[in-house]
């Protein structure tokens, strides 16, 4: 069998442009982990059921274990590594920490990327909508209660962040900490 030709893959990952050479049968998750060393994205079931490999492609959550890397040509991929801004964790990440929304942590990157898409589509989901939105992300540790709480707290953090941006300039640091504190209180 003749060696198959590698193909040029141009894509953006977490805001950075990349030019890669990939084989057509390489999966997006493998390119992210093995070529770009973005190992936050996990491989669980490998068949699109568990959600551990969830990344955003042009803003939409997808199973990167079922996506060919070549199919991401010209697209913008966001992984868990791309959520923090200037060294500060994303409000969803902060909420998961504040609420104890993970134990072993293996599902967490996928869970947070799933939550990111959910909150981008619906900034104020009901508990039922959160459960439906994360229905394809499996966690074997937490029993989901703390994960649902984390997303609810993230909703409040994001709302406070938006209110802060819209209103008079506020110091984001203390406001954020205060919000996380109140989130913890609410969760208990």
């Amino acid at each position, binding site marked *: *069998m003749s060696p*198959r030709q590698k*193909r040029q893959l141009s894509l953006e990952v977490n805001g950075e442009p990349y030019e890669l050479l990939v*084989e*057509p*049968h*390489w*999966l997006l998750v*493998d390119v992210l982990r093995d070529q770009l060393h973005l190992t936050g994205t996990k*491989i669980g079931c*490998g*068949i*699109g*059921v568990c*959600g551990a490999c*969830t990344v955003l492609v042009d803003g*939409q*959550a*997808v*199973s990167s*274990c*079922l*996506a*060919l890397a*070549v*199919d991401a040509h010209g697209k913008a991929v966001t992984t868990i590594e791309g959520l923090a801004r200037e060294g500060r964790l994303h409000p969803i990440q902060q909420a998961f920490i504040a609420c104890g929304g993970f134990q072993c942590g293996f599902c967490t990157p996928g869970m947070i990327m*799933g939550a990111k*898409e*959910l909150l981008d589509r619906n900034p104020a989901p009901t508990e039922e909508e959160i*459960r*439906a*939105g994360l*229905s*394809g*992300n499996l966690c074997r540790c937490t029993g989901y209660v703390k994960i649902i709480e984390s997303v609810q707290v993230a909703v409040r953090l994001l709302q406070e962040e938006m209110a802060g941006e819209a209103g008079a300039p506020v110091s984001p640091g203390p406001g954020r900490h205060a919000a996380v504190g109140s989130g913890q209180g609410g969760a208990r």
Partner: protein
Amino acid sequence: MALWPFDYLEPTSPEECFALMAEHGSEAKLLAGGTALMQFLKQGLARPRALINLKRLPGLGGIEVGPEGALRLGALATHRRIEDAPLVRERWPMLAEMLQLVASPRIRNMATIGGNLCHGDANEDPPPLLLALDASVRVISRVGERLLPVDGLFTDFYETALKPGELLAEVRVPPLPPRSGAVYLKFAPKSRQDFATVGAAAFVRLADAGRCVELRLGLAGVAPTPVRARKVEAALQGQLLSEPLVREAAALVEDEIDPVGDIRGSAGYKREMAKLFLRRAVAEALRRAGAAGPGPT
């Protein structure tokens, strides 16, 4: 879980696509959303020499109403885009409801309606409702095109009536007539993202006197293909649909299905659930059609 190597072909016009399909024949598989095909590749159930990616073909992703009033879904429209489309939510709400029951948001972001039908999986949610709604598909090839009812599309376990060289281009769903109602009920007790143990869809249209003048029933998970429950339909056609009559008719489904026992339930259990969910689907479709209808079953 790495894949076996394959050539990757990306036609940008239907003509180029048909030429590649002719050149590679059964050695090639068509790639749309890929959620089903990638699983087949990973499990070694298919080992194509080439994949023909359809996503660069123009004009296959539309969601619009045709001149005849039917909803036209381009084969590459994803489940998510269809369920989100205001047009679908307003005029074919049962379709949006059904799509929200398919797998997980992630899979719905990737999987296409055309890919879903071509996969020919008897467990999928869209086929029963499309059967009940009397949908059809537009199939294109080098030599022209043809319209095929979804009712004739599924021929056997993962087999469809598409011929070599044919491409499913569009799904057409007729408009809902006055005094009609339709619903898809998914019974998936294990997990929200699982396939249904049984899925049941019903469409009913009532005459002025409240008689049922048009009725179609579709089922998932109970036979090698998605199926219509024709004996049940025949027993209800033209009747005033009372609860005892629907109960009696639903029992006739027994002879029309051939469920296989698996992790989602034994064959016997699926038979019973097929009857139960047909009854519930008819009752809900009747309610939506504006009938007093049979009470809860």
